């Protein structure tokens, strides 16, 4: 089948029952998208399909055929980080960072649709993701600072 990932086309031969996550990681070597739970509960596997934040661990690969798939590897423009990636660096919005790609992918969708979300809207949009290191304070600050109405940060890295 035909998969379009990060603006590149791939012909892959896959079993119909495989998940998009499995194909991205194992066939295409795109390991930035993480396995966290396999049940759609933690958000670590989040990718964009036609601009929608999607749990790749519960998405059959066949349903993604021919659609625009973006993974964390496709977010930066060459060496220039996406503003959300830049904000996560700026605020050290991670510790182990295993969950970070998923949080970043969902945050980009939120900001595309709502360039100036308030705190409650950010919390709501990201509540399907888990960060066990508990970097939530920083993630909230990072997303806010990447919005069109950033607030003065306190305590974050400068």
């Amino acid at each position: 089948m035909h998969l379009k990932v990060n603006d590149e086309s791939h012909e892959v031969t896959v079993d119909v029952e495989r998940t998009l996550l499995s194909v991205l990681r194992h066939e295409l070597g795109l390991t930035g998208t993480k396995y966290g739970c396999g049940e759609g509960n933690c958000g670590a596997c989040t990718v964009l399909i036609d601009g929608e934040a999607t749990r790749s661990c519960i998405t059959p690969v066949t349903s993604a055929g021919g659609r625009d798939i973006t993974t964390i590897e496709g977010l930066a423009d060459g060496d220039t980080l996406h503003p959300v990636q830049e904000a996560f660096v700026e605020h050290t919005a991670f510790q182990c960072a295993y969950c970070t790609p998923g949080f970043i992918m969902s945050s980009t969708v939120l900001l595309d649709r709502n360039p100036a979300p308030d705190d409650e809207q950010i919390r709501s949009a990201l509540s399907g993701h888990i960060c066990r290191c508990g970097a939530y304070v920083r993630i909230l600050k990072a997303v806010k600072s990447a919005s069109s109405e950033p607030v003065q940060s306190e305590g974050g890295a400068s």
Partner: protein
Amino acid sequence: MSRQNADPDIALKVVGAPRWTPEPDPRTPPGDPATLLTIDSDGVVSAFSGKVEYGQGIRNGFAMEIADELDVGVDSVQIVLGDTDLVPQDRGTTGSASTRTVGIQLRRAAATARRALIDLAATRLEVSAGSLKTRDGQVVPDDGSAGVRYADLLSGNSLTLDIPDVVQVKAVEEFQLMGRPARRIDAVSRVTGAAKYAQDVVVSGMLYGKILRPPSYGAKLRQIDTTRAERVSGVVSVVQDGDFVGVVAEREDVAEYAVEAIRARWEESRDTASDWNIPALLKERAEDLTALREGGDLGAGFGSADRVFENTYYVPYVSNAQMEPSASVARWDGDHLTIWSANRGPFAERDSLAEMFGLDTSQVRVTAAEIGGSFGTKTPTVSYEAARLAKAVDAPVRVSYNRAEEFSWSTVRPAATFEIKSGVDADGNIMAWDYAAFHAGENAFRGKRGADILYDVDNVRIGVAASESPLQSGSYRSLGGATNHFAREVHMDEIAVGLGLDPLEFRLRNLTHDRLRPCLIAAAEAFGWATRQQRPGVGYGMAIGYDAGSFTAQCVEVLVENGEARVTRVVVGFDCGLVVNPDGARNQIEGSIIMGMGTALWEAVEFDGGRVLNAGFARYRVPRIADTPEIEVVFTGGDDVPSSGAGEPGIVAIAPAIANAVRDATGTAIQELPIVPRL
């Protein structure tokens, strides 16, 4: 002091013995001398440690310390971690000890190199060493004349230096980087998906393994039929060795599918332990109490008390539930085993694998990948499983746990039951303290941490016992510390309520500790404890604690309504001595608060007869971003006090502070965790 080294690329090498204590201590002799730091002919500095990075930012902390001592940019420092063939054996990454032990020795190594660079420059420039200093990777004369780059000074050299007995490291006021907020040097790889975790490691010719799991702990395999699994396309082999059964396949999903196709009959343990009856069982099945401390005269203490308080407390098993499930790659080259894993203690893992396979430790190499969280779990078991399968099929094999395996077959924080009896006089002075803790797990030592009391009390008995564990207990953030603190600090509030004293006033009346007392006062002041407003559904609580050489005091505000409790505000007083990287320390403390909040409010492993019943995030509630309280951290340590741990101590006081706040809001005592199911 210096000699030639054999490696042509290494212009300067500093050798020293890893240390386990912040200062030399004759009771704990240092490890074997090993290369701690090198500078290559291009001036690139490399430092070596057996510590590993699992999110605590240790790579960053080390790089800042070395860059500061050597006066080089942090970008020209490489930190090599956790490869047993390359780094010194400086013990595992536990007890929040990296900065205070390995960090100081790396600083001494860097200071040794800096001294040698100045001497080289003095010879070349024909001036006295005293007229030179270092700046931006150069040795520069005081008179402002041109300096010499380290790379130029080292060109053509191949020196080996030993760390002298006395080496002058820099004073706090000379630091350029340490003590100031800093970006993580590994940040970009972590936001672009480039960082390689154990789950991501792929080596040439690698196959995928999946283990057949019993239905419960202690189950014995009685009958098995692997025919269907062997016929699955893509399966390379079904490996069986006693109760150990695994499938090796060309793809992970095939291995997972095939292992489901194995038909097996198990005889399960008849143990009736469950999360329903475990609080009482822990005491019934415990060894005798080991006295950690006995002081004064307990009988006389209770005799002089006007009031006696006696209660029992319980903390359930909780799952570490780190985001990256355990994974390991094993490759055999003849009788040499190489492992890529996410273990916290690569040397301990190397040694245990060598023992399991009857090898010399020199035949095993363990390399730490990036680690997607640990908090104490990630045992060598997954590496052992991968190595057994790899040996059987004569090809590299990766074993990656799925989430259900991680919940059921990784380790959990031991449950514990506590009995506390205290006596206080009419003025609120603690006269007697009798403490008994029964921690699940094979070893009472594990429950020792944080069991002692730092309040002023002369008549005291602290007893800890190990109790038979129906689940596989393992380490956790501040193992023992977080649970012991829950019992003690909740009991303290019960006394305060019983005496009609403010919880802050009662604590201060019994607390002269020179670091904990100012820490508590600072936290209470920043929180506005004295002026807190009583409102319906709102409660306030506090707790203090100590761990890993550091001290903390925490005040929280909770809102209890509709059977839910929400933590709205937390103020943390924190004394970890000199703070190397304030932003890194704050990040760790915030994480500890969030994690501890989960253990206070929602988390408990449900089990029955050795079966874990809630092995997934859908049935095991962890903190989500919507639960995030406002968190303020106040550092109260002195810059002249050596750095102590920051990764774990933040968790010890949060659960009791939340329990005390919920009691304040509802009037109902909280003696068991988690809180929300009991509201």
